């Protein structure tokens, strides 16, 4: 376990340094171009590039997770609102040996999805959508939560934040440069070049061309690095989930349900926060086996097949073997040093009955979950009707519309 985290750290630091190198060389080239081929200008460019990076880092470190949770309109919930969700998170917290219970949020969205955030295991939060809660049974919910807790344990959130900022800085810098070039070429900067010495002019043009190419390529390269890393981490989180729950089928069938869901994509996600979700929040219709390089998530069908391939045990070694069976790739997913010899036996399903309810009932459940989150009072009447009273309801009692019995509203403040 600790070996895996350490190996993760090593890989991330290496890739992060690569991204930093891309950022700094881009800064150098741009600086050189604007100062007319001068190396001093290049160093100023480096300083500006690192300045942008530093500011973005400071913003996201002081309040990154709060911004994300607020942007997705997530609401903090307690045990009473959804006891099952709360219990499942606590079970996984115990299994993973987290030092503190993560905060739990529910997002009012019918698209089933979930994410984890927070820089360290002490400050972590887990957020799920109401659609997810309505569709999954207990075992499936446990699989999804275990996946999120694995992200926390593997320190993936720290990585996503760091790498996302680096990516953002590179994109910002190259955008500013390319736009600047476009406008200055309209404004007759050509005269300036031609007025200088002949040899210097040629060297400048070479630098200019190299910089334009770099400004176009750098964001693409950084994107590929970012996506490659986050895809690998998705697999690792799946492996961690199987190991924690000892029941890979739970996560597999949850992923299946989520991918077959007709609900529209999550409207509060964007491209940089995408790696934090359990499945890619951007759906592309009819492209289930989308194994292109620009996806933050591995194809769901592949993740499901790997999980279903775990028939003997649920250790990291078993997952790694299943991974090479399914993808036919020789590259090791998990470093050998991280695979301690352990026997991880599988267990059986806890809930035999599949939760296959009609669509109308699911929609009503989503509504009920959100009403609980928003502190509605639920009053069951003897005639079988349940009344849902909003917190701003005036008056101390309510009459049942079917049998006209009067009910007092509890805890009215």
């Amino acid at each position, binding site marked *: 376990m600790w070996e895996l985290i350490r190996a993760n750290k090593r890989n991330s630091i290496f890739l992060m340094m690569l991204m930093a190198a891309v950022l700094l060389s881009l800064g150098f080239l741009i600086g050189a171009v604007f100062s007319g081929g001068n190396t001093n200008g290049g160093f100023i460019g480096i300083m500006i590039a690192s300045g942008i990076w530093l500011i973005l880092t400071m913003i996201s470190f002081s309040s990154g997770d709060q911004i994300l949770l607020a942007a997705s309109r997530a609401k903090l919930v307690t045990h009473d609102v959804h*006891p*099952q969700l709360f*219990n499942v998170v*606590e079970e996984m917290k*115990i299994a993973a040996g987290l030092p503190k219970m993560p905060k739990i949020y529910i997002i009012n969205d019918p698209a089933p999805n979930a994410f984890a955030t927070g820089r360290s295991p002490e400050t972590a939060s887990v957020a799920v959508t109401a659609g997810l809660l309505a569709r999954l049974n207990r075992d499936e919910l446990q699989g999804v939560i275990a996946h999120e807790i694995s992200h926390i344990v593997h320190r993936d959130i720290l990585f996503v934040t760091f790498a996302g900022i680096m990516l953002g800085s590179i994109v910002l810098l190259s955008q500013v440069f390319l736009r600047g070039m476009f406008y200055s070429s309209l404004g007759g900067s050509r005269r300036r070049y031609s007025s200088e010495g002949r040899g210097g002019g040629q060297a400048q043009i070479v630098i200019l061309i190299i910089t334009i190419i770099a400004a176009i390529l750098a964001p693409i390269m950084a994107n590929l690095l970012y996506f490659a890393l986050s895809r690998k981490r998705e697999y690792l989180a799946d492996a961690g989930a199987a190991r924690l729950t000892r029941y890979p089928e739970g996560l597999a069938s949850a992923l299946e349900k989520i991918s077959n869901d007709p609900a529209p994509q999550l409207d509060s996600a964007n491209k940089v926060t995408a790696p934090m979700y359990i499945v890619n929040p951007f759906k592309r219709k009819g492209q289930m086996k989308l194994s292109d390089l620009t996806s933050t998530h591995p194809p769901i069908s592949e993740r499901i097949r790997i999980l279903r391939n775990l028939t003997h045990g649920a250790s990291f070694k078993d997952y790694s073997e299943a991974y090479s069976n399914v993808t036919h790739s020789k590259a090791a997913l998990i470093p050998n040093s991280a695979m301690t010899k352990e026997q991880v036996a599988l267990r059986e399903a*806890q809930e035999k009955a599949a939760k296959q309810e009609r669509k109308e009932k699911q929609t009503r459940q989503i509504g009920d979950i959100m009403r609980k989150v928003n502190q509605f009072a639920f009053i069951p009447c003897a005639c079988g009707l349940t009344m849902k009273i909003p917190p701003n309801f005036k008056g101390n009692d309510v009459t049942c519309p079917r049998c006209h019995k009067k009910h007092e509203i509890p805890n009215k403040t």
Partner: protein
Amino acid sequence: MGGVLVVLGIILVVIVFLVLFIIGIYNALVRLRNQVDNSWSQIDVQLKRRHDLIPNLVETAKGYMKHERGTFEAITEARSKAMGANNVSDASKAEGALSEALSKFMLVVENYPELKANQNFLAVQEELSSTENKIAFARQSYNDQVLGYNNKIQMFPSNVIAGMFSFTKRDFFEIENEAEREVPKVSF
């Protein structure tokens, strides 16, 4: 004269390295032992919680299940036995028996549809089944920690230091009876 100093210097460096090495292993052992203790306390918390929930469960179910006195008695007895246990192997035996009594009770509940529709009962049931899971997961995590700790104590060179400072092997939390081994299987 100079030769003697060099030899002394080398010996000193070797001693310093040896001491640092021993300190490192000692600290690693202490860390592992604390992790084992911490996971044990996690199990303990959940077992206590289960003991607390049982009277609640019995109270809710009693009104509906008038003819099942034997089942209730079995649970209550298993509970008090489990609460009285005071070492790891006794506790795992008694808790195993309690789990068994509870899963028998849950089978009987299947015959009482009215009870199964009761909101209070459903709430207690969710708490109990979750506590059951938490016990299983805490045990899983405890056994993982014990495996790591015992390995460290038995393997060279840390076994020498473990012997010097009397670090002793820990017991796994195991379930005595074969049927229970496939936990968590209490199906609600």
